[in-house]
């Protein structure tokens, strides 16, 4: 029962637009587990994501509940939910250096300039980018950017992780290695993960339950 409370729960979640039901999901994602949501484009994947993040447009209606560690997220703005999000592209802020991007993500609970800089540097070492702090994000390769984005999200100390097709823009060589890095880190941090993808290989690699939406 305790274990049931921790993690991300989609409790009889139904999303609809007008009279049309887009999708229904009922699932519990325990810490360290992955739920893969698969479906073709236009199947309502992005609507599900916005419901989870808290940016659902007024045109959509949501029934059921979204619980994070037992707490109902209804009505909470994105910044209060502490759900980390990895985008299709890395979404690094182009006007900040790599190190500043990470410091931007790093939780304010880490105090003091020296301490914060050290955590950022350690984060960079962990993703194999030691000494990259002063670099312009635009000079990084796609794989490097993806790793920085992952570390930026983790440094904010999220309670859950959403992956919005974060591997789809990477070339096949890097894809597998980034994917396993992300999934490994999430497991290590005991984060419940929801992976939205249209790629069968992603879902298989994730290893968890697979929910298919938008199918005839």
């Amino acid at each position: 029962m305790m274990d049931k409370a921790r993690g991300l729960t989609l409790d009889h979640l139904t999303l609809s637009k007008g009279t049309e039901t887009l999708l229904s999901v009922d699932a519990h994602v325990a810490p360290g587990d992955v739920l893969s949501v698969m479906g073709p484009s236009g199947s309502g994947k992005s609507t599900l994501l916005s419901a989870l993040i808290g940016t659902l447009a007024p045109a959509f209606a949501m029934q059921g509940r979204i619980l994070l560690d037992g707490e109902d997220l209804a009505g909470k703005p994105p910044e209060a939910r502490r759900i980390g999000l990895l985008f299709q592209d890395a979404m690094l802020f182009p006007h900040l250096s790599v190190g500043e991007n990470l410091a931007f993500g790093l939780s304010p609970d880490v105090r003091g300039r020296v301490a914060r800089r050290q955590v950022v540097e350690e984060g960079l070492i962990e993703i194999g980018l030691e000494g990259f702090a002063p670099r312009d994000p635009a000079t990084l390769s796609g794989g490097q950017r993806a790793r920085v984005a992952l570390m930026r999200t983790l440094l904010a100390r999220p309670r859950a992780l959403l992956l919005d097709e974060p591997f789809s823009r990477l070339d096949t060589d890097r894809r597998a290695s980034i994917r396993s890095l992300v999934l490994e880190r999430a497991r290590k941090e005991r984060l419940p993960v929801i992976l939205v993808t249209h790629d069968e290989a992603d879902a298989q690699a994730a290893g968890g339950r697979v929910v298919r939406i938008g199918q005839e």
Partner: protein
Amino acid sequence: MSARRGLRFVPALTLLALVGPVAAGLIGTLLPAFGYLPAAGLTDWGLAAFAELGAWPGLPASVRLSLTTGLIATALSLAIVTLALAGWQGTPAFRWIERSLSPLLSVPHAAAAFGIAFLIAPSGWVVRLFSPWATGWERPPDLLILQDPAGISLIVGLVAKEVPFLLLMSLAALGQTEASRSLLAARTLGYGRVAGWLVTVFPQVYRQIRLPVFVVLVFSMSVVDVAIILGPNTPNTLSVQIVRWMGDPDLALRLRAAAAAMLQLALVFGGLLAWRIGEWAFARIARRILVRGRRGCMLDRTRGLSAGAILLIAVALFAGIAGLALWSFAGFWSYPNALPDMLILRSWMRHGPELLGPLGSTALIAGLAAGIALVLTIGCLEAEHRHGVRMRRAGAFLLYLPLLIPQTAFLPGLQTLMLSAGLQSGLWPVVLAHVVFVLPYVFLSLADPFRAWDTRLDIAARSMGTSADGVLWRVRLPMLLAPLLTALAVGLAVSVGQYLPTLLVGGGRVQTLTTEAVALASGGDRRAIGIYGLAQTLAALLPFAAAVLVPRLVWRNRRGMRHDG
């Protein structure tokens, strides 16, 4: 063939139309500032004019006013726009803000200033609404609200007009950034809406609106018509004083005016430099705060403030125009009644006939200036399309150049040059002076839709044997009807609102709705001001209404053309 080759020279001609008058005007100001004005028989080079200017007792206050009103109005406008965007961009409420402010952009500065003056004057609407029940004022209070010595009402008037401008420029810039996704990235990291927007989106937007912000700064530091209506007159701002000296029958005072114009130019450069330093300092401080990772969620409390400021501006501008309209029909209107005791047509019957002359010359000048600007713009853009003669960064900067040099620094010089060359002031010089200020806005308005046109249609038409000119006239321009009319309307509105070019280059002999309205400022005949202000507003607004309606009528049976209506 020759027409096609001629197109190559249009960009150069356009730059000449923009830069020529500015350069000539600056030279024409520089020479008399150092004592050389042969038209008045003055040929002694020297610094006497500057010495005289320095001896003018009003100078320190006048200079301080120009600096403070300009910098404060610009900073305040930018702050309101930034906080409103940070708090509301992408929300349904924001679309409402956008829709209510866009038509206000075209309201001429003088009309907006008169409207605000009617609101905040001691016997204005605001005092009337609260008197005597709340204030106890049985008669208009003896307060110096308008034209206060600190220039506060001038700042209010400037902010009300510059906020819509900066907001629309920012919205255009936002289209080129991934604003909503950047904001989402910041929010999922735990940042508040306002703080997240400021840190992630603002730097990208500001980079693109920097030149418009500079334009606002230069304009606010050197504006004449708004300062005559709302600004202090003990002493005036430096720009107003320059115009007063220029209008003096004593030609020797022109030397002092020219010296003051040079000082004005230096002041504006100083203001721009101060702004740049401010930018740099701001960015440095922001970076230091940012790496601390504070989520700044309490900044979201500014959302109410920014929405309130925008609402206040929209209401003030609308109510100001309504006030102009009401005064124009007002019979006896006793204090403290909120409405006139009766509405009559007498003012219109008295001033209506004399309105026709200025109305005609306003329409003629605006039509010619906007028409010339539109033809040059189309020529430049088509040359870019056919020959790749593209305006690069330097070109974009030159486009803004006339807006970055204070009008009071080079228009007096143009007048002096014309005088020295024995040229008659009249319609055409005024039209060409208007083109200098109209062209940048027409170009900025048309460039994006023109460049976004699907060039595969060009290839399709050419492959069927249509000439390049044929494609332009029969395919491209008809398809771009809506943006062309919008650009034309922008040009007309800018021209209608021009005060100083008409006054100085026209040598005081060309009378438009704007020059007549501003001339009424000192008289205080509210009914006449109401009529001229309203006529000026309508002259600027009606073309926009036509620009929206005409394409809808023309393309009513073409669904594929409706999106840009």
